[in-house]
């Protein structure tokens, strides 16, 4: 068995009979199977990255990093402005806020993730709710989060917007929602990587 056969199997270029013979060989040969699994994971990883954006495949070379640095400085300035703006009392209703770090306060929590095949939507608990958004985040970037409401005429109204949020881990981004200020209905959090052309990810939930 060689690398070419692994490629053919992983990219689906084998007939069913060939694939079955290949699989029998894999089951009998654990070391070989591990090689195949790495190849499968490479494909799965590429698929997941491409599902967020194709920009990462066509971006320019690292020589352009100074431009990113300039863009990052601008973002930082905007984030700093937004940070202080949100903390000015009485100016900004805190429907959507940054999740406090290491806060001792006990919030209700809700986890949102893009899960294929799930047919019902998570329900937002009452009160201040810590929302854990599970996805693939780039810790080197900031994210904007819009809280959108789906109206009866199917139009979308943005209820709140929060910029400059930093992921708490490569797979988690946290925010705080005050559910008491929301009317019952269908909502979604639109998460967008700032300073990039990646498409936004939508995480739906309902408020009863």
């Amino acid at each position, binding site marked *: 068995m060689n*690398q070419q056969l692994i490629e053919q*199997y*992983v*990219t*689906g270029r084998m007939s069913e009979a060939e*694939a*079955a013979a290949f*699989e*029998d*060989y*894999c*089951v*009998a*040969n*654990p*070391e*070989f*199977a*591990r090689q*195949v*699994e*790495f*190849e*499968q*994971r*490479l*494909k*799965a*990883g*590429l*698929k*997941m*990255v*491409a599902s967020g954006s*194709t920009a*990462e*495949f*066509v*971006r*320019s*070379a*690292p020589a352009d990093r100074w431009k990113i640095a300039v863009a990052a400085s601008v973002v930082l300035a905007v984030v700093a402005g937004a940070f202080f703006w949100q903390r000015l009392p009485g100016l900004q209703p805190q429907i959507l806020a940054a999740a406090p770090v290491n806060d001792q306060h006990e919030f209700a929590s809700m*986890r*949102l*993730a893009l*899960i*294929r*095949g*799930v*047919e*019902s939507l*998570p*329900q937002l608990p009452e009160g201040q709710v810590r929302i854990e958004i*599970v996805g*693939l985040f*780039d810790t080197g970037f900031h994210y904007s989060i819009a809280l959108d409401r789906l109206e009866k005429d199917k139009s979308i109204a943005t209820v709140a917007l929060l910029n400059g949020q930093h992921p708490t881990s*490569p*797979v988690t981004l946290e925010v705080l929602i005050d559910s008491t200020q929301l009317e019952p209905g269908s909502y979604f959090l639109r998460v967008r990587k700032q300073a990039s052309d990646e498409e936004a990810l939508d995480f739906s939930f309902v408020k009863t």
Partner: protein
Amino acid sequence: MDFVPGGELSRRIREGDVSAESELIRQFEPGLRVLLRRRTGGDHGLLQDLVQETLLVVIQRLRGHGLEDPEKLAAFAAQTARNLAIASLRKTERQRTDIDSAATERNPDTSRAVEAIAEDFEAALAVRALLRELPQSRDRLMLKRFYLEDHDKDVICQEMQLSEAAFNQALSRARRRFRQILEERGFAKRDLLNLGL
């Protein structure tokens, strides 16, 4: 680690040797994961369930009346996995047509599903790191076209003005680096722990 032939494993399990059952799991689990990964469409929870179920069926069969040809133990395990995957797919199809409205109103157990997709996240993080390191956009596009867009190698080579040797070399470099990144981050080690090795 030593490889124990299927015939010997079959005999020892039939004689009640528990260590042979552990050995069977160690030997067969990687291959079963490969086979079932292809048939579970990225649902790692289902993949893990089917791997366990397959191993259980195989061990019970060996503890009972055994196989006609014990040397073909690996082929029997692979076929069992394929059958279970088909049965699971049929069951899912049936459930899709029998959805009751009450069930759709219940909240999904997102925590289990989130854990199930964590493995793809890890691979995606490694891919992202790999893409950052690749100096030429040509190499990144080549990976995308080969793995995701199902373009044939010779078509990619022709359109990107690459020799087959250069293509294979770039692919091999990317593959090696991907594996290295996963291992550096401890993902491979974690996988081994998951496998109970």
